[in-house]
């Protein structure tokens, strides 16, 4: 067995102060639709061994330094040659010494949809059938294209301190486009979502919701010039607070020990994360890798640290940073591992009370991408609503302009919470004073 062969070879290398190996195996099914027609169908797989080795040496100044070297080996690769390469690199690099994670109890975080694991292509067939069935009921909008992916990934992580852990996870991604037409005017909405279980995709309601957005785009007018309450809900709120799960947001950046060590984060333990007065709800959040079926959840992370729910900010003040073993050692913090999902404390407000008119509700951004260091943002609104005098008037265009942390310092959050893939928390937020530049 290749993994065992690599482990034996690593154990035999006296020059190494430590090592880890990850055996990664993935298999994936992919389906692409144009209308109801299948454009492409693909089956793919990958297997590799990620080896990281560590060496310590004393520099000319008498200080002990440490270097790491990483290499990825394919199943037919040369083990000795790969370790030689990694060891050589580890000898070239010199950083402050840090430790490897020690063995610890690994929590049983649910990550796998058994149906997807048994038959990824079959699972996609059901996903696309459900999506097309939902689309067939649409009035005034049509689903024009879609892509669906189902992946099963198994990771076996072993290190020189005795960590030996394995996890299998699934993920199912669905993208679809809904279009609507009125005269010469054509509009569309695009939805991308990833979950670990097919049942969490909530396909029918997603298709229906995006069809409604698309029809509203046909009626949308010019953006209002607005400064005042702005409401965000559900997936859009999740993206605002936690980024899209592929690109982390402000909280993940400023709350990470890596950014603190690099002097990119100005957050300090015990200090408020806000630069001014807090006029909204107190802000508390956790970095949570243990959210059941969370798409950024795991049982253990890339270093082998067990999943945790870590309080990063309590009542506006920094409690700690999400820290890998390396940065925990550098900053004398408790290692917590990778960030995972964002969990926000529930608010105290009934949702209805957050919808007091007038307000602007943002439904779709082109892309919400704040500056993760400063928190400043200026993001184009693809669909929004001005709600006043009992009328919900759609608009498109314009930009939501502000600062992420200033916005959070003046927010009211709903009691009602929900799980949205990489976010767990209130499903409605009313920001007290944001600007829409029309």
């Amino acid at each position: 067995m290749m993994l065992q062969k690599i482990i034996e070879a690593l154990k035999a290398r006296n020059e190494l102060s430590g090592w880890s190996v990850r055996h990664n195996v993935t298999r994936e099914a992919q389906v692409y639709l144009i209308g109801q027609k299948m454009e492409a169908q693909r089956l793919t797989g990958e297997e590799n061994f990620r080896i990281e080795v560590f060496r310590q040496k004393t520099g000319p100044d008498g200080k002990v330094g440490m270097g790491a070297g990483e290499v990825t080996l394919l199943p037919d690769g040369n083990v000795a040659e790969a370790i030689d390469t990694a060891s050589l690199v580890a000898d070239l690099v010199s950083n402050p010494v840090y430790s490897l994670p020690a063995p610890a109890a690994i929590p049983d975080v649910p990550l796998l949809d058994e149906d997807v694991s048994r038959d990824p292509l079959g699972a996609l067939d059901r996903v696309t059938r459900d999506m097309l069935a939902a689309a067939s009921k649409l009035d005034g909008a049509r689903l024009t294209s879609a892509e669906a992916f189902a992946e099963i990934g198994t990771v076996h992580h072993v290190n020189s301190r005795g960590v030996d852990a394995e996890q299998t996870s699934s993920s199912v991604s669905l993208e679809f486009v809904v279009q609507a037409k009125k005269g010469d005017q054509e509009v569309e909405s695009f939805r991308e979502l990833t979950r670990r279980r097919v049942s969490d995709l909530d396909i029918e309601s997603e298709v229906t919701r995006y069809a409604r957005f698309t029809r509203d785009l046909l009626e949308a007018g010019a953006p209002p010039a607005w400064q005042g309450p702005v409401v965000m809900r559900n997936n859009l709120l999740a993206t605002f607070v936690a980024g899209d799960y592929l690109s982390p947001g402000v909280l993940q950046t400023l709350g990470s020990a890596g950014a603190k060590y690099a002097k990119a984060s100005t957050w300090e333990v015990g200090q408020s994360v806000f630069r001014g007065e807090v006029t909204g709800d107190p802000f508390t959040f956790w970095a949570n890798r243990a959210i059941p079926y969370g798409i950024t959840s795991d049982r253990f992370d890339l270093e082998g640290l067990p999943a945790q729910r870590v309080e990063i900010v309590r009542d506006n003040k920094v409690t700690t940073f999400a820290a890998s073993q390396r940065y925990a050692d550098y900053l004398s913090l408790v290692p917590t591992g990778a960030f995972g999902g964002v969990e926000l404390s529930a608010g105290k407000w009934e949702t209805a009370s957050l919808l007091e008119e007038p307000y602007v509700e943002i439904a779709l951004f082109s892309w919400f991408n704040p500056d993760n260091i400063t928190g400043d943002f200026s993001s184009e609104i693809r669909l929004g609503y001005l709600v006043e005098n009992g009328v919900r008037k759609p608009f498109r265009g314009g930009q939501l302009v502000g600062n992420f942390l200033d916005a959070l310092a003046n927010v009211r959050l709903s009691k009602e919470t929900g799980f949205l893939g990489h976010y767990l928390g209130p499903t409605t937020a009313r920001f007290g004073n944001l600007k829409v530049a029309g």
Partner: protein
Amino acid sequence: MTNLILPSAMNSLRGSLADIISQGQKRAPYFSVLLSDRHSLEIVVNNREERVTERPPHAGTVLSAFDGETMRERAIAGFDRDKVNSAMQELVSGVSFAKYAPAVSAPRRGDFVTPMQTDPSTLSVQEKLDRVREMQHFAKGLDPRIVNCQMLYRESNEYSVFANPNTDVGQRVLRIVLYMFVFVAGEDGQVRYNWQSKGATGGWEQAQFSEEEMRKVIDGAVALLTAERIEPGEYQFISAPGVSGVIAHESFGHGVETDMFIKERAKAAHFIDKVVGSSLVNIYDDPSLPGAYGSFFFDDEGMESSSTQIVENGLFRRGITDFYSATALDIPRSSNGRRQDYSRKAYARMSNTFFGKGNSSLEDMIAQVDHGIYLDKWSSGMEDPKGWGIQVTCHYGHEIKGGKITDRVFAPIGISGYVPDVLGSVSAVSNQFKLDPGGCGKGHKELVSVSSGGPHLLMKARLG
């Protein structure tokens, strides 16, 4: 013929491809094989730590069979002949492919290698690390306000072989990219940052920042310490080449990928030979541009690279294609069928996308602006092929007042507007030309290496 030295397992399988294709083609008249091996080395040095990482390679074989309606593929990790043979048998059995008869193309054979002065593979990791350390050490000492300075070097080797009954071509494309990030602290303790990237297809000789380039990055970061938010509204502005490039990329790059035409997602499909910009606007996608970061010799579907003029003097002429969309639309192919790696599907994707040069000098263009903005640097963009809305976010911009750039800085700045209106407002195009390297996704996935850029443009749009 160029001396292309492929990774050994890939080279070994290449020798068997004629037999595999011959067997596959008996059941599927359109049958092709792509062998792809992409691996890279990354070196990062900053004030507090350094890393040398061999990034996880993606190496595998793609078998493609087309029945005229559906492209069926098997993507196999590695280059094992038995596994590829077995996948070929599985792929072509149980489905009738015979209804599609591909056009017979002229036989094509050839190997290609990125021209370079010094092949990085001839240098030791130590030599590369030393160069990066040296640049970082020099840069961090240029200003006392720097709290961290990071230098990143990445070399990416892309080996590929494409074969079908009439084609057997191989290439090695070497992409070099260098990033400098600088973080500075103000008197109030706030941190601001700036960066610069440069990239090319080429060798080790590309991996160098000049002192002038480094100082420009630092000056940009320092200027951000006193940056203001811009008052939203319509402005006359001049886009730096990188900003011009993102506008080209998001509007007539993504907006003219012809897989979007068959999905009815592209407004451009209704604008062929119609006016979409001022007569000064010319936009190209050119994977054959020597030395550019997004260049290659043939795409992942075997199409030899060549330039495509997308917009000619303000008229939209044609889109960029992959095999599937060109076949479905019955239009000529361009060399834009690209995959993130062997495990992903080919789509119509950009390579080097840019505005064509004009005749104006930058100084004359600035002098024409009484009150406006010089947009120095982009940070992100997002496409809207159906609505032709534009969203480009700029890291910062300088005020232009009375025909001169002032010290007043605004950050960040979003550009928004309707693409034909924005391009229709272009009133001057500079005679300078520069490309920025970058990564491009299709939506939020399918990353490929591209560049975008062009000259400075003088135009109008909403900034906020």
